[in-house]
């Protein structure tokens, strides 16, 4: 993998992480979700996702040893809100972050379960099956949460959740699902 492609890759992932955290933060802002802003965020995410995938395709399948460097890029994302996917505890490899990881009340699981990264989104979700199961839980869902306690407990911040596996899962997700929140 050339250095330039790696850089673009890392940049794309970082932007994705920042975008998701912004999307999440906008749920709690006064005045409700802003359609224009949400649309722009989803366009950026789409750009970043497309660039990430096109650069990955050009270099072949990812090698296991490269995971830690991607973790650095993901954890470099700052300002991730505490409110993350409730009840959806995605196991993740030990992050080797350059910067201190954002506040993480639950703590990373610390399991090295690389094979779980290649799971499809549906299998990773532990929420009840239903119409909403197609949408990964770390994106806002139209449905009211049924586990308010878990939600307030706040799972790991999005910055550390958004690892390579999550990014892969986004490829299965239509980013336009961001908009139906309205």
């Amino acid at each position: 993998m050339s250095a330039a492609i790696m850089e673009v890759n890392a940049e794309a992932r970082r932007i994705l992480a920042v975008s998701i955290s912004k999307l999440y933060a906008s749920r709690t802002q006064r005045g409700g979700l802003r359609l224009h802003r949400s649309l722009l965020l989803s366009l950026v995410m789409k750009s970043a996702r497309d660039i990430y995938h096109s650069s990955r395709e050009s270099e072949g399948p990812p090698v296991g040893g490269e995971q830690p460097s991607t973790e650095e890029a993901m954890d470099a994302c700052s300002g991730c809100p505490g409110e993350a996917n409730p009840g959806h505890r995605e196991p993740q490899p030990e992050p080797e972050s350059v910067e201190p990881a954002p506040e993480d009340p639950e703590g990373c699981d610390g399991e090295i379960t690389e094979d779980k990264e290649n799971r499809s989104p549906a299998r990773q979700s532990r929420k009840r099956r239903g119409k909403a199961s197609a949408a990964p839980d770390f994106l806002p869902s139209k449905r009211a949460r049924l586990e308010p306690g878990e939600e307030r407990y706040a799972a790991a911040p999005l910055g550390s959740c958004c690892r390579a596996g999550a990014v892969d899962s986004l490829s299965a997700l239509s980013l336009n699902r961001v908009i139906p929140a309205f």
Partner: protein
Amino acid sequence: MKCFSRYLPYLFRPPSTILSSTCHTEADIISTVEFNSSGELLATGDKGGRVVVFQREQESKSQPQRRGEYNVYSTFQSHEPEFDYLKSLEIEEKINKIKWLPQQNAAYFLLSTNDKTVKLWKISERDKRPEGYNLKDEDGRIRDPSTITSLRVPVLQPMDLMVEATARRIFSNAHTYHINSISVNSDLQTFISTDDLRVNLWNLEITDRSFNIVDIKPANMEELTEVITSAEFHPQQCHTFAYSSSKGSIRLCDMRQAALCDKHCKYFEEPEDPSTRSFFSEIISSISDVKFSHNGRYLMTRDYLTVKVWDLQMENKPLETYQVHDYLRGKLCSLYENDCIFDKFECVWNGSDSVIMTGSYNNFFRMFDRNTKRDVTLEASRENSKPRAILKPRKVCVGGKRRKDEISVDSLDFSKKILHTTWHPHENIIAVAATNNLYIFQDKVN
């Protein structure tokens, strides 16, 4: 290029005073400024839902060289925070836009809007009051009827001038999405209110219904690709209006064509330059403001980095493009992270359509002279607020050696942004809102 100076330095603050020069409440942040059509009045709206109207003092004959100052004329609470119980959403009281109606009698009328409701306000003066009622005394207490032995006719007596604002019409429940603009028609009978997906036409007299004239909501919201960002009526043609989109295009519509103006009659868009493509191309091409020139021949649009002037007769590219702060092009990623890339800057024409103005960061604002092609960067700051001072042009250093008076890109304060400005319709007087402060600058008298 004329220099802007201030013979009389003004620093207006909204009614609730700032505790110190650096501390202010969120509610004091000015969210819109607008001169009325004569330039006699200047209205500001803020995040707290208040409107403050300034009036220009009559120029005194004894001091003809002293230009009229703007003093507070009226202050009122236009909108209050509300709650939409159905959607469990708070509706912000922030005033998004104010538009004046041309004056037709002694009273002044303006439209103010928040995210969901437009209100028509009447601002009128009262300098007389009736005195000598039969049934109540001067304090308003009801008199004992048995003490009334004669009848008198109440007479109007002079009193201290009082300016009162009353809400005459409330136009509500017509917008599902957030209202971003309002525009009064040249027919002075109708106006449009615009949200992210729809434009509604109202009659100023009728509040319980409006006509939807543009609807870009797709059948399936997942297919949404663009939203409406601003709309404005043509200044002379009462059947023409334009609306801008988040994709960087402008559509001109003719209301005579059909009841629903989904088909534009002109479509203005400049093809994207592929060499400048980045993650953020869509965001920076989103138009934040659209304004017709006073003569109705041109359109001006503002996107994140540029201001463009379009000839209504030429749809495929703008007539003129002005770079506002191109040095930010390399910093888009940081501006995305700190949310500055979502800032919506406005743009204004001067009275003769020869100069255009827009804001930037670090309390800078830029003016572009369309004839001489010269431009200037000025700063709205307290340090510059000295009497008889002339605003010194500022310069941003984009690399290489920084000169003494220049400021480097990295030193710019992105929390100090000038989003809202307005230009007097006939004279060279500008009002610039810098967060919670209002600066009024006048041109040097020759």
